[in-house]
């Protein structure tokens, strides 16, 4: 077991390194970035922006460094300057980037494109001394945000959004377990009954329903139409209100009160619950049907064990084993949040943060969320494999 864990951990680290490298490369290849917006801004204004300004901004976002150097600084916080061994400086002159690139219009395949053709002034290792840098992802420093909270640490941004996402995800996950598991079990025990038919049809429709559409329908009915009809309605948008509002039945609702926050949670939670209940109940149902066909269930029945006991003791416990895997995978979701649901309901959580960061080219934030999600996904995989062997002695690790 120990050996197995060590080998798996090594594999995990490798996978994480590659996924970090791949996502970092992907985002570096993306056009735009902080410079683009600035250039467009200054083109329209009267103030001229000169080469020095551009070089300074490029340096601020480390865009003047080569990809490998930038990646290594982002990942591990090195190199921060020349090595010094025994008072002597080593590698000081190594070129690590280009401060002012020479750009020229090149004709490729009949089209004129602007390309970097050379370097006017390069950056050497010595120039890195004194530059502000993060201590590296592996030391838990995600650097500073570029756009959303300019020059504030990414971690600050994440800490401010994470509680909102957790609040949503924990409630939704618990509720969908409470609903989905019994639903699936009961459907399986009463296979082909009216209940089973309705439940399977419902979960089929639920899993075909696009979350964004379902969210909008809820807002349409529960917020807008109910309010117009003069009934008690559900406020939508954001996790807490700004000013007090009154409605029939509940009277005056103070902003940020428990009632206000609960009301605002109902719709996003409903959307999340619908989706997971649809998936989970189908899964539990088919797993339970599989188990009910097994010989040991027939044996138990023929021994004269009461049906209730057969189902609870013999069938259910075995049917729920594979389900552990799926539940554990709710872990990365609980961090990353539900991108679409949070966007529809304007919920200030991690999912919406990701979309905002991507839309505003705030790559440090994007990378941080991606990387933490990747770590959690990999951990969840390991956890579910290990849990499997714990709850099901028939399975051995190899």
């Amino acid at each position, binding site marked *: 077991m120990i050996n197995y864990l060590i080998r798996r951990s090594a594999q995990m680290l490798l*996978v994480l390194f590659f996924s970090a490298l791949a996502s970092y490369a992907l985002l570096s290849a993306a056009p735009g970035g902080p410079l683009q917006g600035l250039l467009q801004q200054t083109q329209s204004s009267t103030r001229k922006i000169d080469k020095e300004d551009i070089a300074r901004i490029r340096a601020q976002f480390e865009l003047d460094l080569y990809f490998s150097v930038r990646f290594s600084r982002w990942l591990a916080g090195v190199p921060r300057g020349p090595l010094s061994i025994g008072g002597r400086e080593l590698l000081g002159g190594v070129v690590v980037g280009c401060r002012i690139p020479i750009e020229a219009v090149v004709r490729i395949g009949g089209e004129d494109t602007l390309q970097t053709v050379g370097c006017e002034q390069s950056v050497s290792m010595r120039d890195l001394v004194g530059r502000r840098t993060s201590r590296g992802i592996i030391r838990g420093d995600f650097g500073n945000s570029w756009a959303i909270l300019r020059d504030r640490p990414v971690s600050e941004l994440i800490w401010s959004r994470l509680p909102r996402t957790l609040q949503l995800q924990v409630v939704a996950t618990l509720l969908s377990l409470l609903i989905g598991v019994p639903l699936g079990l009961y459907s399986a025990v009463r296979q082909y009954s009216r209940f089973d038919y309705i439940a399977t049809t419902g979960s089929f429709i639920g899993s075909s329903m696009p979350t*964004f*559409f379902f969210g909008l329908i809820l807002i*349409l009915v529960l917020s807008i139409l109910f309010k117009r009809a003069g009934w008690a309605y559900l406020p939508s948008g954001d996790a807490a209100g700004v000013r007090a509002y009154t409605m029939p039945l509940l009277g005056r609702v103070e902003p940020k009160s428990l009632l206000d926050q609960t009301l605002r949670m109902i719709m996003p939670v409903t959307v999340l619950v619908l989706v997971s209940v649809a998936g989970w109940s189908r899964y539990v149902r088919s797993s339970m049907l599989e188990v009910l066909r097994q010989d040991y269930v027939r044996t138990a029945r023929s021994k004269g064990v009461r049906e209730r006991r057969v189902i609870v003791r013999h069938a259910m416990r075995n049917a729920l084993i594979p389900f552990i895997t799926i539940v554990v995978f709710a872990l990365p979701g609980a961090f990353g949040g539900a991108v679409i649901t949070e966007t529809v309901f304007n919920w200030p959580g991690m999912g919406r943060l990701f979309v905002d960061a991507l839309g505003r080219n705030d790559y440090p934030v994007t990378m941080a969320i991606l990387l933490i999600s*990747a770590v959690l996904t990999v951990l969840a995989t390991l956890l579910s494999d290990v849990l499997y062997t714990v709850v099901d002695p028939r399975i051995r690790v190899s």
Partner: protein
Amino acid sequence: MAATAEALPVLETEAMPVEQSQLRLILRRFARHRLAVVSSAVLVFIFLLAGAVRSLVPYDATEIEVGNSFAAPFTVSPKDGRTHYLGTDHLGRDYWSRILYAARISLTIAVVSVIGATAVGALVGALSGYFGGALDDILMRFVEFLLTIPTLPILLILSSILLQSPKAVPVPDFIINGLSGFMYISALEARQVVMIMLVLMSLGWLGIARLTRGVVLSLKTMNFVEAARASGVSTTRIILRHMIPNAFAPLVVSASLGLADYVISEAALSFLGFGIQDPTPTWGNMLSFTESYMFEHPWLPLIPGLPIFICALAFNYVGDGLRDALDPRLQL
């Protein structure tokens, strides 16, 4: 329905003498799944609408009628007497016309992406399963690696990059021109459509590769394959006559379920602002506009939202019916 139409002739031509009744058996089993039959009819109807856009709509997709925004359904235009069957949007563009043009675009994206992803996935899976060994190891490790990455964020990143620099991926001109002619959009918009197809395909082939590999692996040990090999049938012929027809059923089922996913994914990308951009009409970006105006015009989201939902549901039901008809043992 598109999937059935493609599947059946192949099953027929690859057939042994008894296969004719096999086909009838499949059809009869499919017909027993009532919702699947209804869904096929609905899909045929939607595809016909999308196919005959030009003769069905009074307006161009991007035609703006100034001063007549948010018109109610069945409003007659004061200028030229044309009818806005489903009303107009915030710019005074005709919803009915845009919905149909969007159907053409969204459905083509889904169909082409599914075909592309299935082709790539089936090829990789078949190679991996048939040849095994180091090739299998490398390909499957790579697939598993990609499967650990959360899908939606990666799709968002890819499309945000590809939409910002659409020239990054070279696409042959005839494809761009063909699509722009077929969808009645400009070449620039067609390029965007191709990018979104690539984004959807980029992760779509993974599941199919695993599926095909599994099928091929289990087929390799089957008696009839062994028998064929023993009687001196060539490898190519074994793959063509025995492997592919047998792997066809799961692929057709997964493709029709995939259509549902792709319609939703494309709409989701557009809805989040990382898909095909306005003014090119797609159900997703139309839906995302209605969100901003739904407090004044609450019924608007239903116009682009219902087609997405109906198509997704119908594709899923057809997939379900096909699974029952082709091979009830399939677990997809």
